[in-house]
């Protein structure tokens, strides 16, 4: 039977969290369809413990291609490998993360395989009767949810928003098959060469991958005050986000920008401080698990989609929150 596949992601040999989230999605689909769940793992020096973890998180079968040429993502090489695997194995569904890799690789491969592809889904399901994949995604700035299917083409492909679901608990009893596929020279398309990586200072995780994000906006009034956001983020174990306004004023750099012209994110907790909530900003956070606003304006747009709000002077509120957090960490 045609399998359900996920495209695992790894960095320097280590499997990334998004892979386990995709397995949770894929497991539900494969169980409904009563087929096996496969994982495609491309990389170099992939740790065996990572492969075991993919099985423990729900994968029945792994297709592993481990070669120096795949050490970093290059769309040309990855696409040649994936296209070849899809052509030989004929999976019915292929899902990847809506990450910079997934959103680059999937449209490229979808052209070659004549597949239907839906971007940045937040829900996946199976249509009763037909067995078609139902892909639901926010569109028009998160103001509508569109459900899309691919009735006549296979595979059905989708990218899934990171953090929009949680990984399944580890099951060490699970058994899976690991298939190693040798890297073919004809896949070695070297038109894109990776030279290195420059890490921005002080940033551990991208905001798309973060469990919690503390964001600041125009209400912070000046650049120096933005340190309050950074401190609060540290105390929460969160990453720093910013509104477009704050980025345009130079208080935070572009990788921190949340919203339509920045990143669309889905953290478990989004804490927005001094952000009134332009439509473009709201579009970037609509699928967050929980939204907390701290704002001086009771009528700020952000409160329309927040779960909890403190209305008042943020420069009095933030120090109290900090004090509270510091006391907690001492207990």
């Amino acid at each position, binding site marked *: 039977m045609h399998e359900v596949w996920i495209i695992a992601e790894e960095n320097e040999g280590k499997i990334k969290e998004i892979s386990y989230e995709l397995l949770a999605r894929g497991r539900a689909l494969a169980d409904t369809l009563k087929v096996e769940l496969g994982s495609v793992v491309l990389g170099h020096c992939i740790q065996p413990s990572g492969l075991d973890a993919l099985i423990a998180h729900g994968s029945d079968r792994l297709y592993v291609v481990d070669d120096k040429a795949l050490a970093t993502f290059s769309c040309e090489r990855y696409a040649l490998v994936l296209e070849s695997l899809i052509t030989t194995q004929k999976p019915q569904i292929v899902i990847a993360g809506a990450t910079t890799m997934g959103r680059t690789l999937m449209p490229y491969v979808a052209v070659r395989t004549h597949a239907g592809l839906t971007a940045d889904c937040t829900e996946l399901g199976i249509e009763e009767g037909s067995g078609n994949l139902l892909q639901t995604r926010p569109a*028009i700035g998160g103001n509508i949810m*569109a459900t899309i299917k691919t009735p006549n083409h296979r595979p059905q492909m989708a990218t899934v928003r990171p953090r929009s679901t949680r990984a399944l608990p580890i099951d060490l009893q699970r058994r899976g098959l690991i298939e190693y596929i040798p890297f073919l020279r004809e896949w070695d398309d070297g038109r894109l060469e990776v030279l290195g990586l420059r890490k921005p200072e002080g940033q551990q995780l991208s905001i798309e991958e973060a469990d919690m994000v503390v964001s600041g906006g125009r209400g912070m009034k000046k650049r120096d005050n933005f340190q309050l956001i950074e401190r609060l983020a540290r105390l929460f174990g969160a990453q720093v986000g910013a509104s477009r306004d704050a980025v345009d004023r130079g208080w935070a750099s572009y990788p921190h920008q949340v919203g339509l012209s920045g990143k669309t994110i889905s953290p478990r907790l989004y804490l927005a401080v001094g952000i009134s909530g332009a439509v473009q900003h709201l579009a970037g956070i609509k699928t967050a698990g929980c939204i907390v606003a701290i704002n001086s304006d009771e009528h700020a747009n952000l409160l329309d*989609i927040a779960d909890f709000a403190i209305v008042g002077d943020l420069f009095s509120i933030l120090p109290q929150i900090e004090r509270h957090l510091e006391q907690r960490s001492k207990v």
Partner: protein
Amino acid sequence: MYIIIPIKQVPETGDVQMDKESGTMIRSGSKSIVNPLDLYALEAGLRLKALHGGRVIAITMGPVSAVKALKEALSMGCDEALHLSDRAFGGSDTWATSYVLSKAIEKLGKPDLIITGERATDGDTGQVGPALASWLDMTLVSYVSSLEMEDGNHLLAERLIEEGYQKVRATLPAVLTVVKEIACPRLPTLAGKKRSMVTPIPVWTAMDIEADPACIGLKGSPTRVVKIESPSVSRHCKVVHALDDASTADAVEQLFSFLEERGLAPLKGGQHA
């Protein structure tokens, strides 16, 4: 250097208000603009032209009214514009759209570079740029945040990815999708506006680009929209007021019990429950 910049006309979202009853968008006057993220692609292309010479062509696929977006591209400084317009293109998904664009680009002659915005602010898929690279077999460099030419055949770029800025060298011809950091878009000039009025904008149909009818429009699109729903707007926000020291302390207490109930309050040293 010969550069093509595919752009898209989108509804302006800036003034959009939400109808709180129905949860739908009220499009005030439904004004259309050039996709804001495409302006960065236009700027990047125009800067390369300023440095290395050559020509920049803006193209769009869309209804008759989309010519306005092309005029804006011309008034920013693009040399030529091309409008792909045909009823048969209507209902195209990203697969079919990228096919149409690639057929037109083949007819124009393959450029050294195609530069696109990261995604459009309405559809928000970001799929057309990478798909173009696939159709035309050009090197794909996505999420480009800075860019320079190394020599006539290679470019050096940084890509903004989850781990940071990845440095790459790419062989031309290439498709770049660019992020906001690439450059600050220029405003149209008066001279540019005047030129945009007199520059002819050819309109090509499906026949002109010799598109396979089975690959365009709704019929040529693998995906189908099943339904559209408006998610409920309100999350029923609990609002507490912090007016003075006492009420602020109380508000913060309430915040933490709220977070604790949901398992979101940090424990020791910033660890989570």
